[in-house]
Every structure is written in structure tokens, then in C-alpha cells.
């Protein structure tokens, strides 16, 4: 059921109860969780936090806790799966789902009780959901008819024949139409408004919002954009909303600068450079490891490095300055950096180097950009552990990442930034080697590549956030590396990547991402994977909340891919 008034229908209902909060492991969900925690703290609500990584864990944790809790909040999970079907909850349990995964499962949406969906009031979104009447219909009258038929006499039956036939025909037609509607609805998976943003709006409606919560909402939205879950237009409209909240929260201090304490969080809106972690790294490294610059310069070639040097020379920045930590660069250069980059970027064919973003500052510390926070928290979430401490590692990763979000100046955030640098380096070196060796193959309807076990850093690739970031990086770089005629074609091709998931079990993780030219970020692999698996009877598991990420047994890989090609061509 759709909740229209989240304060009364959701928060006030759970206020005096014990609540179980299940959080998916992505940055957006964590941010939403932080805001919700702050709200719960204000009203002394008792709650339990449980991280859930995939569907089976969701079921497991639910089974474990279902005795004690009657109210369950799902953050960024559960919206696109039929909860009543997989969890089979008793009738007094209610679920509150705040999920950005789309399409929403229709049973969840039309269920009259037990499941409550928190959605943004968005015309498009509601319009996308098919009419209730077109997919559900009472068959009672028909059934009664058939029952009556049997009890009635044979002679009478003949008279009804024409009518029942007509009815049946109509029913068949309707069923076909229903199938079509549902197929259209579920064909693509994509992402709706960020969960953090939704929870923030709840806080705002309760007039309990403050700068900390706004920062979490910003981080949640930045996560969606950075991991290419949403297109630029959706991002910009969210940013505009956030900007409105920002000026509303801070308007009192605008007239007099020194009224605000140094130790509080200050958020500012700016057109920032789209470079990864450049405030915490050296400018040169950051240029090499950011998606837009790395792919534009083709830094994996010698020519690319040369062009990068040319770019720096054009801006008049000495290499000694660029190669040292950004915070130690001369102040004059730092101040002019934005305008310098912007001027030279056009000459080198760098488009969209600047984007709207937010940064936060607390005390006299360095400023933290929202996208850097996303990198850092994401890296902490997927920190690697040795095999024996795997189970403990996942939970401690969750706690660490929550901790890193707790304050802008949290020391864990710094650790995360260092980890994120390692990840970006791994991405860059793998992208270089993939393109150099020409490992990306065109399979007709899609591009394909596989990460081999034994590659350096191959362990990173089993993690969904990293794999997603890597595949976007790779697709961008690959398309750039082609010549013009091929490029146009490759732009419209999606990419599928396989990577070792669990070496001991012999399983592979597969991710599919939409083509570069597609701005709507709609992903058709969810259904394609499902059909391919059905057709070949591969041993796949569609455990991830994101339907375009699946795992399967290594032996089934080749027949699965063959089926995928036939389905998609």
C-alpha cells in the first residue's frame, strides 16, 4: 500500500513499538539509516539494526527476529520482491518499505495491509504503475457460474454455453493483455528517488531536520549519481530540492557570518570538479583515476599520459605542484584551479567536467565533498578480509561505515578515503590491462568481458559496488578507445562482466550495465538473466536486491551466455 502521509502512517505508528530496521549494504541505505536513527533517538524509539546483503539473508534475519518485532522497516531492500510470498509473515507484522529499486513489486504496491511503501509524490512514478483493474480481477462470479453448471441439469447447461464461451474468450484476452502489461512494467530495472532523501523528507515534515541529516541525504543522492544509478537530469532535480532545504536551514545565519559556531557542520553548494578524491590526493593522481578525465585522455596509453601532461602545461601548473598532496599545493593555484581546469577542459574535449555538488566542513578541518564521502563509505563497506574472519568482517564493515558517516570529521572517514584510493588504483590498472590486451569482446547484442581468477586485485571484483563502478569505468574507457565508426556502434551496446565470486564454491558473479548512450539508466538485464537461466536450467541465484547482478556456477557460464545472446538478439 502506498503511504501518503509518512508522519502519521509510518512514524507515529511505530513510535511506541519496538522496530526492526533492515538495511541493505549500499551507501544510500546507510545514509537513510543514519537519518532514521537520529529520528528514533529524538523520540526514544527502541530499534534493532540488521544489515542484509541479499534476499536469503533477508529471509534468515526475518525468521530470527519475527517473534519479537511487529514493525519492520526495510531500507533499500524488499521493494522489488514479493515480500508476502518469500517471507510468509504472520498477519500482525507490518512492513514499511523505503526502497529506491524499481520496478516496485505489484503485490507489494496493491497489498491493502501489512506492506506500506514510502514513495515520493511523483506523478511519473505513480503513472508507471499499471491500473489495479487491468491486472487484478474478481473471478468469483465466473467460479460460481462453473459450480452452478455442475449442479444444474444438463439441458440447462446448453443454454449457457454461448455465454460462458464468450466469457472465457474475454478472459483469455484479458489474461494475455495482463501478461503484456506486466511484462512491459517489469522489463527494465532502474532506480527511483534515493531512500535517504525520502527519510530526510520525513524528518523535514516532522520539523526535526538539521544540517547533519541534510548532509546524509546529500550523500545518499550523490551515491546514486556516482554509481550511475540515476541519470544527470534526475540528479539535478534532486540537487535543486536539496539546495532549497539547505538555504532554508541556514538562512538565519546569512546576515551575520560569525553567529554560527565553528564546530557545527557547514554545508555549501558549489559547481565542483568531477574528479575523484582530489582534495585528499594529488591533483595528478586524481586526474588519472577519475572516470571523465581518465577516459578522455586515455591514460592507459603513452599518448594519453603525454596529453595529460600537455593539459597540465596548458593550465600552467608545474608538475611538482600537481604531484604533491592537494592540501600542500600553493594556495594561489588551488584558488584558481577550478577556472583553469574549466578553461582548458574545452580544448581537450572534456565535457561535463564540472557538476553541481555539495561539500561540508566542520571545525577547521578540510572540506569534504559529497562524492568523496561516497567513495570512502563504499570502500569501507567492501573492505576485504582474510577468509576465516569473513563473517565477522561483514558486520564490522557495516558498523565501520555507519561510524564513518556519524560525523563529517570522523576518523573512519579518513581510513575509508585511503581504501578508496586503493580501489581506484585497482580499477585503473585493470581497465588499462583489459583495453591493452583487447579483452572486451563484442557478442553481438552486448559487449562481454571476464575477470580471471589470479588477476591482481581480483578479489575486489566479487563485491557488487566495486564491480559496478569498475564496469562503468571500463565501458566508458572502452568506447573512448575505439575509432569513430566503431564508437557509435559501441555506444549503444550494454556491457556484461563476469568475475570470480567465491573461488571455493566455484561461483561467478555477473553484472550487466546499460549502454553508454542511454541516459535513462534503465537496465534490461534483470529479466534477460532470468530468462536465460530458465532456458538453460543454469544453477543461478538471483539473490541480490539489484536484479542485474547474479551469481552462477562456473560450469554453467558458457551455456548461460549462449542463451543470453539468443534472447537479446
Amino acid at each position, binding site marked *: 500500500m502506498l503511504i501518503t502521509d509518512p508522519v502519521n502512517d509510518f512514524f507515529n505508528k511505530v513510535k511506541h513499538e519496538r522496530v526492526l530496521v533492515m538495511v541493505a549494504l549500499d551507501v544510500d541505505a546507510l545514509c537513510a539509516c543514519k537519518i532514521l536513527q537520529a529520528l528514533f*533517538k*529524538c523520540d*526514544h524509539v527502541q530499534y534493532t539494526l540488521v544489515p542484509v546483503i541479499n534476499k536469503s539473508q533477508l529471509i534468515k534475519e526475518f525468521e530470527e527476529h519475527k517473534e519479537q518485532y511487529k514493525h519492520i522497516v526495510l531500507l533499500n531492500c524488499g521493494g522489488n520482491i514479493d515480500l508476502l510470498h518469500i517471507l510468509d509473515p504472520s498477519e500482525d507484522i507490518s512492513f514499511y518499505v523505503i526502497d529506491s529499486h524499481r520496478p516496485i513489486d505489484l503485490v507489494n504496491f496493491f497489498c491493502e495491509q501489512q506492506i506500506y511503501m514510502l514513495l515520493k509524490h511523483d506523478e511519473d512514478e505513480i503513472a508507471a504503475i499499471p491500473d489495479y483493474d487491468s491486472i487484478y480481477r474478481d473471478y468469483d462470479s465466473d467460479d460460481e457460474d462453473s459450480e452452478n453448471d455442475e449442479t444444474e441439469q444438463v439441458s440447462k447447461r446448453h443454454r449457457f454455453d454461448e455465454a460462458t464461451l464468450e466469457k472465457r474468450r474475454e478472459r483469455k484476452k484479458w489474461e494475455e493483455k495482463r501478461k503484456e502489461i506486466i511484462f512491459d512494467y517489469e522489463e527494465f530495472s532502474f532506480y527511483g528517488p534515493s531512500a535517504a532523501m525520502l527519510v530526510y523528507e520525513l524528518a523535514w515534515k516532522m*520539523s*526535526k531536520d538539521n544540517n547533519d541529516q541534510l548532509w546524509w541525504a546529500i550523500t545518499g543522492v550523490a551515491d546514486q549519481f556516482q554509481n550511475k544509478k540515476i541519470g544527470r537530469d534526475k540528479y539535478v532535480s534532486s540537487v535543486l530540492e536539496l539546495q532549497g532545504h539547505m538555504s532554508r536551514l541556514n538562512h538565519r545565519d546569512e546576515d551575520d557570518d*560569525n*553567529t*554560527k559556531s*565553528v564546530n*557545527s557542520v557547514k554545508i555549501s553548494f558549489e559547481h565542483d570538479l568531477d574528479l575523484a578524491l582530489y582534495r585528499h590526493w594529488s591533483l595528478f593522481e586524481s586526474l588519472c583515476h577519475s572516470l571523465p578525465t581518465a577516459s578522455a585522455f586515455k591514460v592507459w596509453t603513452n599518448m594519453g599520459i603525454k596529453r595529460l601532461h600537455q593539459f597540465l602545461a596548458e593550465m600552467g601548473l608545474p608538475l611538482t605542484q600537481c604531484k604533491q598532496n592537494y592540501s600542500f599545493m600553493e594556495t594561489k593555484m588551488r584558488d584558481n584551479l577550478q577556472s583553469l581546469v574549466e578553461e582548458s577542459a574545452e580544448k581537450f574535449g572534456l565535457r561535463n567536467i564540472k557538476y553541481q555538488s555539495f561539500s561540508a566542513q566542520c571545525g577547521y578541518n578540510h572540506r569534504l565533498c559529497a562524492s568523496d564521502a561516497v567513495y570512502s563509505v563504499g570502500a569501507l563497506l567492501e573492505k576485504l578480509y582474510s577468509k576465516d574472519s569473513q563473517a565477522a568482517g561483514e558486520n564490522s564493515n557495516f558498523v565501520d561505515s555507519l561510524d564513518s558517516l556519524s560525523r563529517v570529521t570522523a576518523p573512519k572517514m579518513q581510513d575509508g578515503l585511503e581504501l578508496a584510493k586503493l580501489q581506484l588504483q585497482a580499477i585503473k590498472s585493470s581497465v588499462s590491462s583489459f583495453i591493452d590486451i583487447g579483452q572486451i569482446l563484442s557478442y553481438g547484442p552486448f559487449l562481454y568481458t571476464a575477470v580471471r581468477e589470479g588477476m591482481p586485485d581480483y578479489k575486489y571484483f566479487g563485491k557488487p559496488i566495486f564491480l559496478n563502478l569498475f564496469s562503468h569505468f571500463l565501458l566508458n574507457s572502452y568506447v573512448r578507445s575505439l575509432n569513430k565508426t566503431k564508437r557509435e556502434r559501441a555506444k549503444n551496446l550494454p556491457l556484461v562482466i563476469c568475475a570470480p565470486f567465491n573461488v571455493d564454491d566455484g561461483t561467478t558473479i555477473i553484472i550487466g550495465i546499460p549502454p553508454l548512450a542511454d541516459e535513462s539508466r534503465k537496465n534490461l538485464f534483470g529479466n534477460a538473466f532470468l530468462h536465460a537461466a530458465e532456458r538453460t536450467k543454469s544453477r543461478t541465484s538471483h539473490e541480490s536486491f539489484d536484479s542485474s547482478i547474479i551469481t552462477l556456477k562456473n560450469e554453467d557460464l558458457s551455456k548461460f551466455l549462449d542463451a543470453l545472446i539468443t534472447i537479446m538478439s
Partner: protein
Amino acid sequence: MEPGDVEFIAEKELVKIVPNFALGKIYFISGDVGPFSPGLPVDVPLWLAIAIKQRQKCRVHPPEWLDVDKIETMKDDEIASEFFTELPNPHFCEVAQLLLTHATDNIPNADLLRTLIKDIWDIRAAKLRSNIDKFVKLQAGHARLDNLSQMEINTIRPFLTASLDHMYQLRISQSYTERNMSTQ
């Protein structure tokens, strides 16, 4: 007494808050508080004010004396005067400290105030120390210090009484040996 205990006593001071919720009177052992209605200022004990503030259910009105100009003149007076000046509130430091940490956003110029209050505290502590030095050197039997706050007395008490005890014992033993020497 620990500093924490002094702070606990200070939390009984009344402050003005503007709540954003409605609630009837609350009956505490120490007295009744309320009723609360949105937008109407009400006097509550500091501990309650902080608890409500942390739940984001009120705005705190800083006390009159917690103002940059007033604190600045206080500081100047404190420097000029030889003795301790009178504090606007017997729990001046504790109240200021608590309000500045928990209700920073309701107090204008919080950072500046924090420094000024720390300055006043330091000046007074220095005065106190030099006075004690004088007192001990003179071997006086008693001294009179007006306008000391409980916190200040409390910071100096454990050290001062203990050292006076020591000195007394030393002095007794000294006089004892002297008496012995003279009788021999």
C-alpha cells in the same frame, strides 16, 4: 565533591525555553514544571532543558548575562579589580558550559563566548592561586574571599586542605622538637 557533582547541582538552575510541543504540568519532587505549549516561553530546570533540546523539541533562550557585551565588560572588570567580582549566576561556568555544548545553535556568537568565559575562568583561577600563595606565606589563620563560585572552591579544596594539613603536622613536629631541645 567531584566537578560532576557540582555540575549536577548547577543543572537545577532555571532557564527559559520555547517548546514546540504541548504538554501539561509535570510534577517533580523538586517542584512543578510547565505547562508547555508551542511557542510560549517557559522556565524549566537546565537538565530538563537539555534533555528536551537533545530531542529537538525546543529552542533555548540563553540567559541575559550570556551575551558578548556583558561578558566582555565582566572580563574587563575582573582584570581591573583586585578582588573577585560578583558573578551573574552562582553556577556561571557550569551553566555557560552546558548551554554552549548542547544549545550552540541557539546562542549567538557561541565561539566568542566560549573563549571569553574561559578567559574569565583563567583570570579568576590565577587570582585564587596567588591569593592562596599569599595566605600560606603569611601563615595566616583564616582568610576571606568573597564571590567565589562553588566550582572554584571545589577545584582548590582538595589540594588546599590536604596541604594545610601537611603543613600543620610539620609545624607541630617542628615545635615539638624545639620544645624538647629547650628542655634538655
